[in-house]
């Protein structure tokens, strides 16, 4: 995959940040809008936040617990706690940062209550450090989980490689580098509407390959 420079001029790549909801970004605005709706009682808005962050939270919790099956229970507990505490979320930090803390604390509580030795020191690290150790912890997954994850991974990568170049570039600039549509439009010298369309078509193409696996 091409390696694009970070849009904000930092030396830190997007995936190392571990949080694509940069302050002031459109992503964060979407999260805040969904949070606001959920705070007003629209549970479906919270459902969308769960759909958006479920994989990330489960990855995080699984790393701490060493058990992907248990990770789902703990991640579920973390999401329920987050929903209950949503009234206290005032948007001082990105939603995922807030959710991340709840997930880490819930995992810690689960480990303490089951008298487990904490897996490692990552729980005490910041989000940046967390992301950097992610690839070293594959062994904690069950064979089934690893197999499915690998299959999904390969399917997505293959589908991305098969995309026309303009679609592939657009989606990678968005997903991997975290550029806004406007930044991508500048980089690709095309209108913002075209960027929106290209990213959608890229996602659709990948989704067509992914859907059978998930069904």
């Amino acid at each position, binding site marked *: 995959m091409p390696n694009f420079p970070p849009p904000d001029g930092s030396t830190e790549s997007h995936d190392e940040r571990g949080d694509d909801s940069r302050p002031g970004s459109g992503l964060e605005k979407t999260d805040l809008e969904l949070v606001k709706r959920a705070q007003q009682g629209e549970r479906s808005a919270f459902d969308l936040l769960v759909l958006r962050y479920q994989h990330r939270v489960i990855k995080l919790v699984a790393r701490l617990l060493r058990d992907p099956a248990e990770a789902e229970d703990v991640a579920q507990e973390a999401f329920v706690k987050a929903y209950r505490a949503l009234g206290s979320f005032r948007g001082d930090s990105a939603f995922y940062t807030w959710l991340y803390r709840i997930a880490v604390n819930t995992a810690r509580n689960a480990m303490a209550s089951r008298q487990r030795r904490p897996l490692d020191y990552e729980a005490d690290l910041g989000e940046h450090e967390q992301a950097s150790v992610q690839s070293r912890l594959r062994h904690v997954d069950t064979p089934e989980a690893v197999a499915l994850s690998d299959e999904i*991974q390969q399917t997505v990568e293959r589908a991305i490689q098969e995309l026309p170049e303009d679609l592939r570039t657009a989606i990678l600039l968005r997903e991997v580098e975290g550029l806004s549509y406007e930044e991508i439009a500048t980089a690709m010298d095309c209108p913002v509407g075209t960027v929106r369309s290209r990213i959608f078509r890229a996602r659709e193409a990948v989704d067509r390959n992914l859907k059978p696996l998930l069904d």
Partner: protein
Amino acid sequence: MTDQIKEQISALLDGELPQNEMNLLVRRLERDAALRLAFGRYALVGEVLRAPGGALASAGFAERVSSAVAAGVSAAPSASAVAPSSRRRRATPMIGAAVAAGTLFAAVLLLVPEQGEQLQQARSVEPPAPVAADVEATGAASPTLARSQRMAAYLVAHGEYSTPIGRRNVWTGVLANDPGITRVSYEFSEAR
């Protein structure tokens, strides 16, 4: 599910959907499970591209969370978990109302049994009739009752804003010095 709506979902995921389109789309997503699944799959693509490897949520995880949230919470989250400061702000009028209600109840308890006791004693005591008549009058529209009503109103108003010790002192002082209550009790002790 049209491509136009799916393109909106894609833009929503990226935080690039205009507010007016977002309102409509979120409502659509509330109603349409297939749209929500598409939203979830688009999110998964991004997750895989950004952070390869590791555990992923199983199919149905989000549904289970939704059910757990629905089962455990019946009200809006802001109502069940609010910031402490706003919780205090909301609690203050409630405390005031509770104190007022409690004070009124206490005043009624102090007055009603006494009047009831007066009536009961008056009935059980055979003449002198004048005492009974006096008691009947006291139960109807006597100056004592009027004072008691004013006192109850005062206690309610005072109790809403005073400290517990302040309230207790006021109750004690007012009740101890109420001439009507003293007089009625005295009359009954005389009657007995």
